[in-house]
């Protein structure tokens, strides 16, 4: 929630308040995410938030966003930021570009998060080759803490570019207990990802 609080502050600041709601994503059932830009089959039941971090993203959780947060970004076109760029006058976000290399995606994600979360305590820890939806991808782990809530959080994301568009599945949880408890199931979910069409 803290992470999302930061993102919401930055991205939804000027949006009309809408009642946030949740929709169950049952285990074993293939679901379309981000307006059918990506499909996954969760291995455990998740809850999808009706609020979205951008037009190209959506957010799931198991127990509440403070404890585990799974975000999907799918079909982000060249020239767009991955989050809503609502504070673009004073704190513009970096933009995805279709000619980026896989390693650039980790840098794009890091810079976007440092700006949105307003923290310099954000480090990419390890970067490895991976696969996402049958395409070459980059998997990177990271950790961060933010001002005002200094609980250390760990994250792992898998990102790729397909037909010039950006795709990513990203999981964040407190480093203590929650990240290790859930990352195995998240990786299984990532393995089920497909890009329709």
């Amino acid at each position, binding site marked *: 929630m803290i992470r999302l609080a930061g993102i919401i502050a930055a991205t939804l600041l000027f949006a009309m308040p809408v009642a946030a709601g949740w929709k169950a994503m049952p285990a074993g059932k293939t679901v379309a995410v981000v307006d059918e830009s990506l499909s996954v089959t969760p291995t455990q039941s998740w809850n999808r938030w009706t609020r979205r971090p951008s037009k190209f993203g959506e957010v799931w959780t198991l127990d509440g966003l403070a404890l585990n947060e799974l975000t999907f970004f799918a079909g982000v076109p060249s020239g767009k930021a991955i989050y809503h760029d609502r504070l673009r006058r*004073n704190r513009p976000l970096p933009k995805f570009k279709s000619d980026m290399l896989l390693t650039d995606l980790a840098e794009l994600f890091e810079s976007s998060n440092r700006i949105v979360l*307003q923290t310099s*305590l954000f480090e990419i820890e390890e970067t490895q080759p991976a696969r996402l939806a049958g395409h070459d991808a980059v998997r990177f782990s990271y950790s961060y803490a933010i001002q005002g809530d200094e609980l250390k959080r760990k994250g792992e994301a898998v990102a790729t570019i397909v037909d010039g568009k950006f795709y990513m599945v990203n999981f964040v949880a407190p480093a203590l207990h929650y990240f290790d408890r859930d990352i195995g199931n998240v990786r299984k979910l990532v393995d089920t990802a497909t890009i329709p069409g």
Partner: protein
Amino acid sequence: MQKLALSFLTATSLAVAGVANAHPSRPLPSAIGYEPKDEDERGLWLQMDEFERNLKQSKLLIRDPELNQYVHSVLCNTVGSDRCNAARIYIIRTPYFNASMAPNGVMMVWSGLLLRMRNEAELASVLGHEFGHFEKQHSLQSFRDIRAKSDAAAWLSLVPGAGMFASFSLLGSALRFNREMEREADLISLDYLAESGYDPMAASNIWEQLRAEMDAQAKARKQRSMKDVGNSLWSTHPSTKERMEYLREAAEEMGSEGKRKGEAEFRAAMQKWWPKLVDDQIKLNDFGSTEFLLGQLASDGWTGRLLFARGELYRARAKKDDMTKAVGFYRQAAAKSDAPAETWRGLGVALMRLGKQADGRAALRKYLQKKPDASDRAMIGLMAREK
């Protein structure tokens, strides 16, 4: 950069002065063994002591003993070793220009401020300004002014330890210093500089640089510069232009010739931290400010580290011609002995973005040779087609 100017104001707002003049016999808060004198002051101190207990645990603190010792020693040089120990300096890893002072002696200096200082005299002028607020008890004065107008309990409820930076900002905005207090702290700082032998022109120079940085930021973003925004009759602070000018006039009267700037000392003390602070700045996606600051840091010549940083900045922006320029900077960096291993990583990636695959792979392999334990070894190795 608006943030930069604003946060400086917010910060100094929190800082401190005014009442002491009315009671010349009262001891200054910087006196050894000073205790709060009344209920208001005790209340403020209690809140700030709680804040400080949390601050000590913060992951954002830069704990490097050498850097902390250096900044403390500059304060002592500036205000005198008999008084400087009343302040406890905390260096915070946050990439914006800010410094602040709480009434109980907690002084916070943000890393973005250190990145923007060019010499010891400039740092001394900021520390002297904050210490001036402290000695003049400006925060107590502001607190009383606000309390006279509004509900003090509601105000105090903003302060407690949870979410300390958020509440610190709120506190800052609730507790604005007026023009006279800022001006007074500015002039106190000038006196400190003069007494301690530092160049008093340093104070005016800081504002001049900040205004130039705001111009550079705005130009890169194709916006109007914010440097004179908020400069109206109704503004509660002197404008940056006004400050730059009255500080310059006063410094001219004091005489700046031959006074100590302490550039070499400052550079030596910051050497270890610059790469990290520059990296924090590059990741803010603020091309104009960063390019301006790199140019400032390179006033003595472009080192390998600074050229590497410039390559990273251009590669991250990736506009027309940026990638070609980045390659040029990485290559210049690579020719210097202090170039970090990541220079070849940046070079390789930039070359590959330009379609020069073979040269790019060669540079990436060189990166892995120079940094065999790189945390991105598997990924870069694949891109470099390493055997």
